[in-house]
């Protein structure tokens, strides 16, 4: 058995190619600790699902090792890996009742009949579905099917549960509700979860750590707060949450703060995150909620002229689209306090942010 601080799941230099010409997963290295809730987040085609399938055993790695509990599992067939899995469309067996579905993994393990009965009942109780034990999956709503699928993946006490976009087919409200439910189950059972999704808010809500995938590579692996607050490249900044991006050229770097000349000619200062040398091109990223319209220029602040293009009233805040430094898609979230109610379209004012809140990242022309 692996040591407590050893990783529970480990990808070591894993590559995957389907056609022998292009790599879907390029040199993946990832350690997952026991009990962790790790989310693989990324757009479709980024390689996240392939990674999950390799872990489940339905795809084989073209190169590299995958280890589970310290043992390489490349040559172990899926049914011997003991990994629970929740599928995108639940994959509940349509010809079996809910009870039979849940008993299936126990029966294949030759568990005694009475034990099976107990297990099935207790797990159904946990997901509050005991009343539905004799129904067929087709007689259940989407959310109910989802709970059964979850229960089935957990009923045989796996150490690791994989979830492949399990909430994708649910409506928004139900999805959010299920997010909390899954999170609570994870916390209560202490099981390790690897979760795949393309929905960033889902990832932020549930995960201990998030691996952001793009183009077959992990762009950043971090906890939700770090990921949001300190994106390490412009893809992550763009993909996680909202941000305003400005293009420019680094003029100087001193004590971690870079001075950037924007393409519009304005000079701003930003935290040097992903820029190395003077003269290199950079993408500046600043979150809309970190911008302010009631500012005074200071050493710690960058301030630019702005013109209000559009106002959207959202209750707790006002979403304000402005033209800043030649870009008319600049968003500022203005808190809904009484002093701000004089905003009107066409008004010219000044917008600013703390230099530390603006991050100078790799150059990446915004879409």
């Amino acid at each position, binding site marked *: 058995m692996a040591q407590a601080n050893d990783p529970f799941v480990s990808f070591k230099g894993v590559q995957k190619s389907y056609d022998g010409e292009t790599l879907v997963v390029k040199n993946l290295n990832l350690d997952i600790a026991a009990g962790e809730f790790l989310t693989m987040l990324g757009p479709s085609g980024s390689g996240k699902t392939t990674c999950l399938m390799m872990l*489940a*055993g*339905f795809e084989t790695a073209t190169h590299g090792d995958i280890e589970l509990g310290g043992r390489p599992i490349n040559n172990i*067939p*899926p*049914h*011997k*890996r*003991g*990994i*629970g*899995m929740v*599928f*995108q*469309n639940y*994959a*509940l*067996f*349509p*010809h079996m009742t809910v009870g039979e579905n849940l008993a*299936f*993994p126990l029966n*294949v*393990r030759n568990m005694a009949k009475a034990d099976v009965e107990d297990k099935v009942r207790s797990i159904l109780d946990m997901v509050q579905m005991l009343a539905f034990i004799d129904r067929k999956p087709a007689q259940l709503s989407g959310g109910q099917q989802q709970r059964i699928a979850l229960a*089935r*993946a957990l009923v*045989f006490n796996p150490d690791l549960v*994989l979830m492949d976009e399990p909430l994708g087919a649910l409506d928004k409200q139900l999805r959010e509700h299920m997010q909390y439910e899954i999170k609570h189950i994870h916390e209560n059972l202490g099981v390790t979860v690897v979760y795949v999704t393309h929905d960033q808010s889902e990832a932020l809500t549930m995960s201990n750590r998030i691996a952001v995938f793009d183009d077959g590579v992990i762009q950043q692996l971090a906890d939700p707060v770090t990921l949001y607050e300190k994106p390490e490249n412009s893809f992550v900044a763009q993909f996680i949450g909202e941000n305003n991006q400005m293009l420019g050229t680094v003029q100087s770097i001193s004590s971690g703060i870079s001075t950037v000349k924007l393409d519009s000619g304005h000079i701003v200062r930003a935290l040097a995150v992903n820029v190395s040398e003077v003269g290199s091109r950079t993408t500046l990223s600043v979150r809309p909620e970190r911008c302010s319209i009631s500012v005074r220029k200071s050493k710690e602040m960058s301030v630019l002229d702005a013109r209000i293009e559009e106002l959207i009233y959202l209750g707790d805040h006002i979403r304000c689209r402005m033209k800043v430094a030649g870009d008319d898609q600049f968003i500022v979230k203005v808190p809904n306090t009484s002093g701000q109610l004089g905003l009107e379209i066409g008004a010219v004012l000044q917008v600013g942010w703390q230099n530390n809140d603006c991050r100078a990242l790799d150059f990446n022309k915004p879409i």
Partner: protein
Amino acid sequence: MADSHIAPLEPITAADGTPLKKKLAQALFRSKVRAVSLVVPLFAFVMVSFVIPIFALMWQGVYNERFSKYTPNLTEQLTSWDGLTEPDEALFAALVADLVVAKKERTIGRIATRVNQEYPGTRSLFTSTARKAKKLTPPFKESVIKVNKKWAKIEVWRAMKLTSQNLTPAFYATALDGRYTVDQGFVQQNENRQIYVTLFWRTFMISASVMGLCLLLGYPVAYLLATLPLRTSNLLMIMVLLPFWTSLLVRTTAWIAILQSQGVINDLLVTFGITADDSRFSLIYNMTGTIIAMTHILLPFMILPLYSVMKTIPPSYMRAARSLGATPTRAFIKVYMPQTIPGVGAGGLLVFILAIGYYITPALVGGQDGQLISNMIAYHMQKSLNWSLAAALGGILLSGVLLLYWAYDRVVGIDNMKLG
């Protein structure tokens, strides 16, 4: 519901005061008329070309008026005759009167054929006597028996009495290797003429074997078709469909060339020394050949429904089963196969029903075992023109199929069947 407790005291009316129900019926009337008028031609076509002929034919199995229609006098006399006492002069006189008319009207053949069905060998008795009927003089009993002494046999008269009854169970009795007689009711057919029950049984057995073999061979093929990559599966599909585009006779003949004792398979076996030249296998002109050829011909009818069902089963079920700890075999048996049952049912029923009606192939390659019930139906439809017996045989076959259909419905459920 919030408003359900308010009981409507009077019918709800539309804005102009007419009751809502009436208004709705008016509004729907036009669309109903349109829908009905779209269906009527097809409905009429199916009724005229399919349903009515089937019922009319079934009706023939119990109703035959050939005799009574052309022998009005005789039929009247036969009705009052008890079938036990010696036929009297009145019967003979009626016979002669009818024979004279029948000869003139050229209906004697129909009468003779009908009686011959119940009492073989009497056809010529009627036709030859009819030729001389005009010249016969009373007392007719004497003169008729003088023409042919067979007329003295009471069995001939009993057969006539039987055939004079339009509504008769006689054909169904014959179709089940029995005989319906005037004096004894239902009796067993002579042993050396008992053939139909044997043929029914053989037909069902061959059809069941063919269905079983089709399932056994078709299932893996359909699975491959449904799971292989598109390019490979398209090629495979063409190979499955190819026999469809070849004439039935050509395929049957091809099997003869392959399976006969001087055929491809036996030649190969002899060449490789597996069998001796003088002990070649009999693979055709027997039951084996029938089953092989029919299985090949009917295989696509099994594969296609299976394929269409398998195509709709997403691979995630098998993956889910394996992730839950089932071995590939167990996952296949417990999770995949139950979901293909609608296809198995549809394909099985299709193959079985088609096999029951097949007769060209068994006739050509079946040898002495190759006679099936459909051959007899065709014989009675086309050669003996005993359509009533053909109808009775067909009726029994139809009931058998319906019975199976019903059993299938009870066991699997008919709405659980997918034809593609």
